[in-house]
Structures are given as structure tokens and as C-alpha cells.
């Protein structure tokens, strides 16, 4: 017994020292000026602008490459890598080449926080492009604010947020959901059924929609949430049939969409009977759901692969050339691509990668994105974007039915809408 204990302890000490040595070694090899632990003092955020030493600038890319969210995020990562390569091919930023540091968020929110911390404090990246779910963004937010890092978040989201360390290149609610509801009320009917996955984005979005329906004369006939990964929609479809809505506003996430649309079609409900407008179904998702069950249904985004701009033509061509002819582009992919270019432009303008300087330089920055001209709003670090409503065609692409004509000013707290005053009491 005692011998065993001795062996145990010997093993413990050996192993512990190995771990410590390993950690230590890692510390010394990564980035030349190792973040000195002696940097005591309180939370002094000494502008972590990142390592601009030599002729390279490191940038972080942090998406889920494994786990359930990999489905969506891998394509965004690809687009961001492509943008970095294009920028490098054109001489880089400030004459320096960009070096991407790719990390896996593994569809796990604490991992996102951990990797974000690693990218900023160990790799000393100049900025990070990453995140998809609201949860991953919420997990990273405190890290970026604490270390004064810079995050570019490329996905449409539920609004009600405006961090000084995050640029939101996806749509906020008034650039997607609010105009979509108004359009539906005018063109497709007033009886709404709200269907979403049971998590933060759908619940917040539906709260906004309900207020809007009240104000604009719509009628709510049902509201249902299903757990993430839910695959049997027969009961829900029965409920829909009973409620007899004219419009289903769909905020389901990921895989649930596949099950829902397949089973909706089986139940004999087509786009002619009930309009389904989705805010999380883009070209990428159509490939996984199958065009045959989606044809005729609607989506609201700021960009489609079919969006007709000269920039988009080259963007789609390059994307397909880089990753294969069968790949498609979609709104978050474009937003990720835009983010890299916007950041690069801001750095060029600021002449440095220092976070505060880049933020200052980014205010009012304009760029001709594949989806049309976009402008960074200096107040809330969101982007002016054009709203587009599209219908799924038999080739898996969208046909644009309506667009807002000009880029819409982002309003994450919906302050310009009277009916939304009760939604958020505190900023």
C-alpha cells in the first residue's frame, strides 16, 4: 500500500512538472514579447494593438470548426481566409502581409472565451474575426472588453447590444426582421405564426415582432419554440394547421429547419398555402435542406448570391474558384468577407493596428461590398446595409422580390421605432 502511495506521488510530481514545463515552454515560444506576468496593477488596458513587428500582422480567426455549429461557421472561415489571401496578394495592409491564426471554438461557448483570450494575449493578434451564435459572442464580449481587443462579428443577430470592442457586420433587427414583418403585412397577410428554436435569438426576435404586429395591425395566432436539434415537427405542424396562419415567421436554427420544411411539405402545406419567411435559411442551408421542399418560401437577408453588383460577380467567382464549383455564397459569408476588408481599410486609414486608432478610423468608413455599398455607423459600430427579401427558386438561389432601395441605418436598440419603446428599458 505504502509503496503504491510513493509511486503515486512520484508520478504526480513528474507529471506536474511536465505540465508546467510544457506550459512554460509554450509561453516562451509564442510571440516574442511574452506578456510579462509582472504586468500587475489593475485592469489597465494598455491598447493591445497586436504585434506589428517585422513585415507581418497576425489576425485571429475564431469559428467552430467542430461540433454542431461547424455546419455554418466553416464557410465563413473560408470567406475570411479568402479575403486575407486577396489582401495579401495585393500587397497586404500597411505593406505587411496578414498571417491568420485559426482557432476552433468547437461550438462550445467557454471555449470561445478561452480561445479569444489566447488570441489576444498570447498570439497578440491585431484583430479577431469570429463567432456565429449569440452565445459565442456573449461569451467573447467580456474578454474583448477586458483586454481591449477587437472583434468582427459577421452574423445577423437579435440586437440590443453595442460593445465598444465589437464591430457587427451582420444585420441587426431593424435591417432584417422589422422590414420583413412590414413587408409581409403589406403583401402576404396579417395572421402570423411565430416559430423558433428555444434560445435567445428567436425569443428576442419574436418579442420584437409581437410589438410590431400590435402596432402595425397584425394578428398573432400562435407562437412555438422547439429545443435545439428537434427533429419531429408533426405535432407542431398539426398546431399550425389548427391556427390557420397566413404567414409563418421562422426563426428556427440549423438542422431543425431541415426537419421542419421536409415535414411541412409532407403535410401538404406548400408555399402557396402559407408563406414561410425564414431569417436563418440562406443559400448554404438550402443545399442541406433540399430545394424541392423549400421552393417558393421566403427569406430576409442583406445579400444573396444572385445580388446584382459587379463586386459580387468577382466575389462569387473567386469563392467558387477557391473552394469548388459546388459551393455557394450567402449573407454571413459575405459579411465575414466584408469584415476583413473593412478592418484592412480602417488600418490603412489609421496607419496603425492599434485598436483605439482603428476604431476611430473605422467611423463612417465606406466600402463597395458584394452586397452593395456599406458604411460603418460610428455610433454603434454596426453597418448600414440594404435589406432584401428573396424567394427560393428551383436552382437553390434566391430571386429578390423587394429591397429597401438604400442602405438602412442600423438601430440595435430600435430607438427610432415608437412601438419598441417598451422592449428595452435600459441601454
Amino acid at each position: 500500500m505504502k509503496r503504491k502511495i510513493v509511486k503515486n506521488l512520484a508520478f504526480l510530481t513528474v507529471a506536474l512538472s511536465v505540465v508546467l514545463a510544457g506550459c512554460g515552454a509554450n509561453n516562451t515560444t509564442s510571440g516574442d514579447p511574452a506578456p510579462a506576468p509582472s504586468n500587475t496593477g489593475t485592469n489597465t488596458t494598455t491598447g493591445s494593438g497586436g504585434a506589428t513587428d517585422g513585415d507581418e500582422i497576425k489576425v485571429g480567426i475564431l469559428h467552430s470548426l467542430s461540433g454542431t455549429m461547424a455546419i455554418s461557421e466553416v464557410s465563413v472561415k473560408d470567406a475570411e481566409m479568402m479575403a486575407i489571401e486577396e489582401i495579401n496578394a495585393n500587397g497586404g495592409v500597411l505593406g505587411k502581409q496578414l498571417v491568420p491564426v485559426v482557432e476552433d471554438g468547437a461550438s462550445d461557448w467557454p471555449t470561445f472565451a478561452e480561445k479569444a483570450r489566447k488570441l489576444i494575449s498570447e498570439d497578440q493578434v491585431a484583430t479577431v474575426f469570429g463567432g456565429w451564435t449569440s452565445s459565442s459572442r456573449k461569451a467573447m464580449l467580456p474578454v474583448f472588453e477586458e483586454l481591449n481587443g477587437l472583434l468582427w462579428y459577421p452574423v445577423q443577430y437579435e440586437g440590443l447590444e453595442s460593445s465598444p470592442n465589437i464591430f457587427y457586420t451582420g444585420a441587426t433587427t431593424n435591417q432584417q426582421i422589422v422590414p420583413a414583418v412590414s413587408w409581409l403585412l403589406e403583401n402576404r397577410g396579417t395572421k402570423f405564426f411565430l416559430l423558433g428554436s428555444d434560445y435567445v435569438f428567436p425569443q428576442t426576435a419574436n418579442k420584437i415582432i409581437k410589438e410590431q404586429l400590435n402596432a402595425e395591425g397584425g394578428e398573432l395566432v400562435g407562437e412555438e419554440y422547439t429545443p435545439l436539434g428537434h427533429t419531429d415537427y408533426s405535432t407542431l405542424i398539426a398546431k399550425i394547421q389548427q391556427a390557420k396562419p397566413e404567414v409563418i415567421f421562422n426563426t428556427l436554427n440549423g438542422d431543425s429547419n431541415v426537419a421542419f420544411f421536409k415535414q411541412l411539405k409532407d403535410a401538404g402545406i406548400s408555399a402557396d398555402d402559407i408563406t414561410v419567411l425564414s431569417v436563418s435559411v440562406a443559400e448554404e442551408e438550402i443545399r442541406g435542406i433540399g430545394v424541392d421542399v423549400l421552393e417558393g418560401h421566403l427569406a430576409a437577408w442583406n445579400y444573396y448570391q444572385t445580388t446584382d453588383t459587379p463586386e459580387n460577380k468577382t466575389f462569387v467567382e473567386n469563392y467558387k474558384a477557391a473552394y469548388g464549383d459546388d459551393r455557394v455564397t450567402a449573407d454571413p459569408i459575405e459579411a465575414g468577407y466584408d469584415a476583413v476588408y473593412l478592418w484592412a481599410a480602417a488600418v490603412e486609414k489609421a496607419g496603425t493596428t492599434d485598436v483605439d486608432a482603428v476604431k476611430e478610423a473605422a467611423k463612417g468608413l465606406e466600402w463597395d461590398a458584394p452586397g452593395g455599398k456599406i458604411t460603418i455607423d460610428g455610433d454603434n459600430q454596426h453597418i448600414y446595409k440594404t435589406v432584401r427579401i428573396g424567394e427560393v427558386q428551383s436552382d437553390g438561389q434566391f430571386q429578390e422580390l423587394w429591397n429597401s432601395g438604400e442602405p438602412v441605418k442600423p438601430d440595435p436598440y430600435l430607438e427610432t421605432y415608437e412601438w419598441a419603446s417598451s422592449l428595452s428599458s435600459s441601454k
Partner: protein
Amino acid sequence: MEITIIQLFNGLSMGSILLLIALGLAVTFGLMNVINMAHGELIMIGAYATYITQNLFNDYLPASLFNWYFVLSIPVSFMVAFLIGWLLEVSLIRFLYGRPLDSLLATWGIALMLQQLARTIFGAPNVAVKSPTWLDGGFRLMDGVVLPYKRLFIILLVIVTLVAMFLYIYRSHAGRRMRAVMQNRDMAACLGISTRRVDSMTFAIGSGVAGIAGCALTLMGPIGPSLGTYYIVDAFMVVVLGGVGKLVGTIVGAVGIGVTGTMFEYWTNASLGKVLVFLCIVAFLQWKPKGLVAMKTRSLD
């Protein structure tokens, strides 16, 4: 009235899907006492096999034959999953007999690898399987009650699979050997049965049935690398509720969970319905710890 019929049918349909995903598990877990956490991934393999069959039909055969790919994809899915199951048994599972909890952990590792493998081969996004046109639409029972052909087809498929398994286990020589080995391994070995071969055969069949389930699920849901994770816990619940070692129990368990599940979901909502079903299962197991239909045994430990 209509809604009652629809909901009864939905319950039955959900029960049949649950049964299909749990049948393979009833064999590997129920008969062999191997807790196969990679069962969900075998379902995924069946689904991808269907996807490949569809693509082959698309690429090499005239469009007029396309509709029949699904008929062929059922045996193809079975065979692919059967082979992979057999490989797993020969390379790993055979070291794990008699260590059920270890088999749980090891097969979970396998599940991780299979998922990543699928992601490497087919890419992370979902793939689409176009269902054959003869399964589109539904049977109009009365005004407002349409029974989708796909759901009817899955019910039929379950019945056929069940009958086939029943015939195999209880009416064939191979099945008799299988039962003999599961009941008393040493005695069976003494009587000249090759227990190794029976083991790999049994595990492979269980895996093959999972493949069929995967094929059927392409009609209803997503086809992606994480497909298996959506079904694995449900499948275990069915087998545990039904009682280990008897197919009858699994059938009753699956239909029971299906019907009560849809009922709860109808009365409350999907999240709460799921919670209630699981609470019911937990409560039920307090009352009957061995499940609905328990094997009678006098052995103690």
C-alpha cells in the same frame, strides 16, 4: 375530432421512428450487453449511404430510374452499416464483452471519430437527399386529415424489419445459435457453436438495422455529421423503458414514448413536452427498474 386522429397518427409515426432507431440498439445492447454510443453514428452512416446511392443514380443512370434509388438504398444502407459494424466488432468491441460501462466509453470515442470522419469526407454542412416522388403527398383519410405517405412508409418499413428480425432470431438456425450464445455462452461453445462468429454477426446485424434507420430518416430530417447525436439518447430510453433483451418490450416502449410524447407536446410545448416525457420515464423506472418486459432470471449478480 380531426386533431385527435392526426395526433394519434403522429404519435404512432413518432413511435415507429423511435422503434426503428432503437431496434439495432435492442440487439447490440439488449442481447449483447454492449452499450454502443456509436449507434447514432451508424444511423448517420446509413443516411450518408443513401445520399451516395442517390448521387450515383443521378450521375450514372437515366433520370427515369431516379425514383427507384430509394428502394435500392435501403439494402445498401444496411450493408454499409453492417460492414462497418462488423469491422468495429472485430477490431474493438470484442475486447469489451462483460465490461458494459467500458464499452459505453470506448464506443463514445468511436462516435467522435466517425463524426469527424464524416465531416472530413462530406464536409461540415448538411447534405440534401431528394425523396422519391412516389413518397410525396399523403393519403386523405377525411377532410383535414392527411396522412403523409412518408410516415406511412416508415411504419411499413418498421413492420417489415421487425418481421425479418423475428424470423431471423426465432426461426432460423443462425438465430437459434445466436440465442444460445446470448443465454449461455459457455454451454453454447461446448456444443460447438463458434461464439466469436455469432458475436460479430449479431453486432453487425444490430448495426445494419441502424443503417436502415438512417436511410428512413433521410425522408424526415437533416443529414449531417451530427445526425447521430440527435437520436442516441432517445434510442437508449426506448430500450431501457422497454426492458432489455426482449423485442416486444422495445416495441411497446417506442410506441409508448411516441404517443405520450406527442400528447405532451400538443398540450404544452416542445421543450416542456420533452422534459415531461423524460420525467415519466424516470418515474416509471422507479416502479419497474427492469423496464416493461423484463427477462426473468434467478441469478443475483
